[in-house]
């Protein structure tokens, strides 16, 4: 793009990295600079086998913002696929690059891109824990909370504006809901004993949580503003890690009522639970794809904790990583990618994988051990 070497963010390389991480694109950088008004020489570019071309420019405006313009060309049909222009503060330049990736992804695949979504994750460094909000590529992380005590289980609200999480700063697990932009937060569950594993309902009105207030760990539904919990499970075993099926009609959760931790499904309004996992003696941490088709989860096989994916219709499963131990999978909002934490060279790190396991990428992140990712929703803008 014209002007990019003076820009604080390298728009074209961010776009290339985004699209390659999706597993559906291969990018080449041209050494020739072309802005959004230049018409490309289709015959020359097509000969190299390229199918699409991104051109553009970036310049600084008088009020300190940046003017970013781009155009996408279909080289195969010789067509202008359109473009956009943005006036943006410098702090949002990466976001604009991700919006460009989304535009390209949607024009060329017909599906919604996830590149301007955000991921929350937790780091542990020295004796301190931090909850970060980062771009979907792991970059541009900003801390929502730092604490001398652990933070686990961040979970984005359907609006993308709030994060529920468990913080141990009171020397016990308490569930908070935190408005990311303002830093205002409220306690939604601090009953006697443990309060953990928050999961937003798809309508954003309630949270499923695990509470030990009645003795063991059981699943309850609580209003998102806080209030009286309604108990959903009625066992003397451990019932935890609830998550909603995308239409809100059912909860998937972990229970050891059968003697070992397995994944079950029950109607949200209460009712008998059906077991979902039958292979192995330890299946936990379910995540459901937005189209309701896939379940990602962690299964212990030969002592190793590995990310698995189950086709919920056929109930066939496969493991998709060759690292481990894997933890806490979370789907991207277009259902195409899974983010999870694993151990790489002795450090906890975040990876994304396509649902079939073919294309994987390590996410950039903060220093320290990185864990507990959760992928945020599409934002309305």
């Amino acid at each position, binding site marked *: 793009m014209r*002007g990019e070497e003076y820009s604080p963010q390298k728009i074209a390389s961010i776009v290339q990295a985004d699209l390659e991480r999706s597993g559906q694109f*291969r990018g080449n950088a041209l050494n020739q600079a072309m802005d959004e008004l230049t018409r490309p020489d289709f015959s020359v570019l097509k000969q190299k086998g390229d199918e699409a071309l991104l051109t553009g420019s970036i310049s600084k405006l008088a009020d300190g913002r940046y003017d970013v313009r781009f155009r996408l060309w279909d080289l195969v049909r010789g067509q202008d696929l359109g473009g956009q222009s943005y006036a943006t503060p410098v702090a949002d330049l990466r976001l604009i690059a991700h919006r460009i990736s989304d535009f390209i992804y949607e024009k060329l695949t017909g599906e919604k891109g996830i590149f301007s979504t955000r991921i929350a994750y937790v780091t542990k460094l020295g004796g301190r824990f931090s909850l970060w909000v980062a771009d979907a590529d792991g970059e541009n992380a900003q801390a929502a909370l730092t604490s001398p005590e652990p933070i686990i289980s961040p979970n984005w609200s359907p609006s993308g504006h709030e994060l529920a999480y468990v913080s141990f700063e009171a020397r016990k697990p308490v569930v908070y809901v935190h408005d990311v932009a303002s830093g205002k937060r409220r306690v939604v569950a601090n009953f006697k004993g443990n309060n953990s594993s928050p999961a937003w309902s798809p309508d954003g009105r309630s949270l499923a949580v695990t509470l030990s207030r009645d003795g063991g760990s059981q699943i309850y539904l609580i209003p998102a503003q806080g209030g009286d919990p309604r108990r959903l499970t009625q066992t003397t075993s451990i019932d935890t890690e609830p998550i909603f099926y995308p239409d809100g009609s059912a909860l998937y959760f972990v229970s050891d009522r059968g003697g070992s931790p397995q994944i079950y499904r029950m109607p949200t309004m209460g009712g008998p639970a059906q077991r979902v996992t039958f292979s192995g003696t330890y299946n*936990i941490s379910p995540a459901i794809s937005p189209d309701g088709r896939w379940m990602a989860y962690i299964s212990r096989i030969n002592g190793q904790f590995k990310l698995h994916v189950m086709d919920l219709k056929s109930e066939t499963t496969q493991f998709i990583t060759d690292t481990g131990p894997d933890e806490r999978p979370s789907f991207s909002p277009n259902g195409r990618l899974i983010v999870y934490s694993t151990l790489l060279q002795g450090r906890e790190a975040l990876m994304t994988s396509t649902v079939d396991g073919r294309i994987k990428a390590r996410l950039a992140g903060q220093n320290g051990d990185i864990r507990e990712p959760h992928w945020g929703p599409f934002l309305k803008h």
Partner: protein
Amino acid sequence: MNKTLITLTLAALLAACSSPVKLNEVPVEEKAGVALAAPSEQAPPPPARSAVAGIDARPLTGVAPGPEGVTKVIYFDYDSFVIKSEFQSVIEKHAAYIKQDSKRRIALEGHTDERGGREYNLALGQKRSEAVRKALNLLGVSDAQMEAVSFGKEKPAVQGNSEEAFAKNRRAEIAYK
């Protein structure tokens, strides 16, 4: 279009300005409830949409002593939530101490070794702290003076993944408030 990789060419950048643009990095500050603000030059640029306001949690203070010379840590076997007989006298001494003063408050903090998922281990740790709570309760300690909680695998006493480290982390701790 889904099966084949789409190849995309990205045109490189041309120099547009003759003078380099000053980098305007926004430092991340962690003040409670304060939105991040960029240093202003002439007219302040419009606020960024991706702003995240940070909170810094302070450590809790206030720990009271327990009975002198009595350990506050009870260890458990793998996959077990049963208090071994060797800890029975420890529990009895704590029960006696707590019952001396109805204002005494304790938290029972359950822990696991580092194998397995965080939330499931939180629940397993809870079974350990619950076991100690029940044992104290049987000896006459009031529930109003106790709270059983868990840290799961989040606060190991010993780092590492040897059997020795695992054994030192499977525990319940009695914390006087």
